[in-house]
């Protein structure tokens, strides 16, 4: 092991709390949350040093950490931009034209999937179902879901991020969370027995 990563004091406390959730002798189960914690501290990606550090912290073989880290798209094994855009292209999103969203972002940023913009702001990644099919198509930007996207609203979100703003996450159309987009279909008129 060459370089070894160390948690900041604050993260060290969190890491210990995470490990404490698992039974004694099963500390290795904490590998996934610790990799996540580590990559958050390390500009969003799990470098060799982060994996070494986690392996050492949990007293588990280095190869087992690599196995887990390389299995999940949630763990980035190469550097990513400030904003990691995860495009869902699984069937429901694809049916709702996720291809257009992807193409618009790619054209606006000038990079393709698996790439990072030169200014280090954006990385693009294709992922499988993000579990928000009701609001398809969706893109996960860091920890937030941007839903009901179109090519135009995608570019608008990216423009705002580029300008340093934080556009509101959730549906990008006029809709409350995942309520029907055409407005309420039931309980339109509330009547009570006393009326």
């Amino acid at each position, binding site marked *: 092991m060459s370089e070894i990563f160390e948690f900041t004091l604050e993260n060290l406390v969190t890491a210990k709390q995470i490990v404490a959730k698992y039974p004694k002798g099963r500390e290795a189960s904490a590998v996934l949350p610790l990799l996540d914690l580590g990559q958050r501290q390390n500009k969003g990606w799990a470098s060799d040093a982060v994996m070494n550090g986690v392996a050492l912290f949990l007293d588990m073989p*280095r*190869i*087992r950490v*690599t*196995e887990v880290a*390389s*299995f999940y798209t949630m763990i980035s094994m190469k550097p990513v931009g400030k904003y990691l855009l995860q495009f869902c292209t699984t069937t429901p999103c694809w049916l709702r034209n996720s291809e257009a969203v992807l193409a618009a972002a790619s054209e606006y940023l000038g990079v393709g999937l698996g790439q990072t913009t030169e200014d280090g702001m954006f990385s693009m990644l294709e992922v499988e179902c993000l579990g928000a099919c009701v609001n398809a198509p969706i893109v996960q930007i860091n920890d937030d879901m941007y839903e009901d996207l179109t090519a135009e609203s995608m570019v608008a979100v990216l423009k705002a991020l580029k300008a340093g703003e934080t556009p509101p996450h959730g549906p990008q159309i006029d809709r409350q969370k995942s309520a029907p987009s055409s407005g309420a279909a039931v309980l339109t008129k509330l009547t009570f027995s006393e009326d």
Partner: protein
Amino acid sequence: MPKLKIDGVEIEVENGLTVLQACEQAGVEIPRFCYHERLSVAGNCRMCLVEVSPGPPKPQASCALPAGEGMEVTTNSPMVEKARTGVMEFLLINHPLDCPICDQGGECDLQDQAMGYGNSGSRYTEDKRAVSEKYMGPLINTIMTRCIHCTRCVRFSTEVGGVTDMGMVNRGENAEITTLEKAVSSELSGNVIDLCPVGALTSKPYSFVARPWELKKTETIDVLDAMGSNIRVDVRGNEVMRVLPRLNEDVNEEWISDKSRFSCDGLRSQRLDKPYVRNAAGKLEPASWDEAFAVISAKLSGAAGERIAAIAGDQCDAESMFALKGLMDALGSPNLDCRQDGAALDPSVRSSYLFNTGIAKAEEADICLIIGANPRWEAPLVNTRLRKGWLDGGMKISVIGPQLDLTYDYDYLGASTATLQEIADGTHPFAAALKAAKRPMLMIGMGALSRDDGAACLAVARKIANDCGLIRDDWNGFNVLHTAAARVGGMDLGFTPGQGGCDVSGILNGASSGAIDVVYLLGADEIKMSSLDKAFVIYQGHHGDAGAHAADVILPGAAYTEKSGVYVNLEGRVQRGRRAAFPPGDAREDWTILRALSAIVGKTLPYDDLPGLRKAMHEACPHFTHIDTVEPTSWEDFGTIGDMSAAPFKSAIENFYMTDPISRASETMAACTREFILNAEGATGTDG
């Protein structure tokens, strides 16, 4: 004891078996890639699909399905055939069609099973995936495009080997087996080559060397450690191409160590292929057998018996030691020894120098004390038994001696004899633990026995065995961990000093003081040769190693693959090795050399052929007739209590990969030494 029907035949099987194992018991063969009876169940190749009712109306993986009461298993229905054909088609999608240039060709599970279940043509027109080669050290060659991700290698190295170097990274189509460009740091790593059902992991030294169908296969016994591993030697022409393990549940299961497997290239280099005689100028000169014998005869005819000595090496077969002992007896010499390292073993009590518990039973022990040994290097397959006991049965292991990575956790009790004495006196808490155990064992290594105070160490170990209840009616927990294949055989034959005779150190001292004139070395290379400068040295052996350099006459003998001979392993199991190839040049089988020499010196040995020799040997040692069995021994008194030095115990082996003339001559073992020993030393010595 569930009863189930397999293809209509009812069978009752033990609890806890899988459907696949039940099918095997019923005599039905189930194709498989990932399943291996000695590894954990992975269930990821899907080749072992069978139809089971009651249950979901789809094929089920029999390797991961417990056999249950009343199951009806069908292994030959159209549904099963179709399912397996489908699995095979998927496996072949990304498997290259490079059988003609693949080393596994001819002994490949995938090739064989594709004959049974494969389609005759491919429906796949897309690009096949390609995977970059990985570095796994000097022994394992990788062609990872061929990998079908059965993960047998990962499970073997983790579970049996006890090293966590291998793993499967990425997922789905991108999954790859890798070691992160690190050599697999296990002494058993070669076994992954046998386990690999395809040609992804193949032997590096054997790559592109031979085809299985052009090899002559001989079943014999390994002599590179004292395990007596059962091996198969594959020969083409007269050259040993490779060594493979052979199944013996009582000894090596189906594994062998890397030294046993890969040292065979040492059989080709540095060989003694003709007799040599040292001339007046002090140089060794090729000679004929007659000339060499004449020189020896001239030396021996004048010498008194007590001025002659013989030392047998670590790889001798019992026959040649028996013949040499016969010759020495005829010459009137009591000076003979088979303990090159000077180990204080007592030849009069058989149980004092055996691994009494037995290799297979060692895994049943619940507590084990290792004294002055590094079993991982000295007997890797004993170590796997301990690891198995530790992993499955919760065996508690404690160590007195070198503190090393043994692939299992242990309590470190101390480095030297002080702790040992405390346990013997009963003042150490470990003594109580031993007494409380159901099946306690101790294991004393050559690192303790070959010291000057070895006899005292042996006596203390015996005292512990006696006092702490290691000796019971059905259990003997006293074990000596040998490192030399010939040692137990030599002790059994009485190749030890006779009345008034010298042992190895006595012979060496006698040779340097002038009390001994002639020293006969039978493959003995591990002694201090400078002590023999004044004596006339006859070296009979197969490699130009230390002994040959010190010799005045060299008689070229046969290596273990080139002679039929009996070997007794560390637990006292008598096993017969068979000749796989002929000795090179003028070299001869060792007992024939001794028989010929005995006639020339006028002390003709009373046998003319191998059966005759064996008959005489069996008369002297009746248990040699019981091939592949361990003769029961009785527990007697042995060892002499004495002062013990406080110096820490060391392992008898400093470099696992080079311990004998064969492995020292092997290029592969030299590469391993560079990779694993020198690199490791560099890392701890200078880097940190």
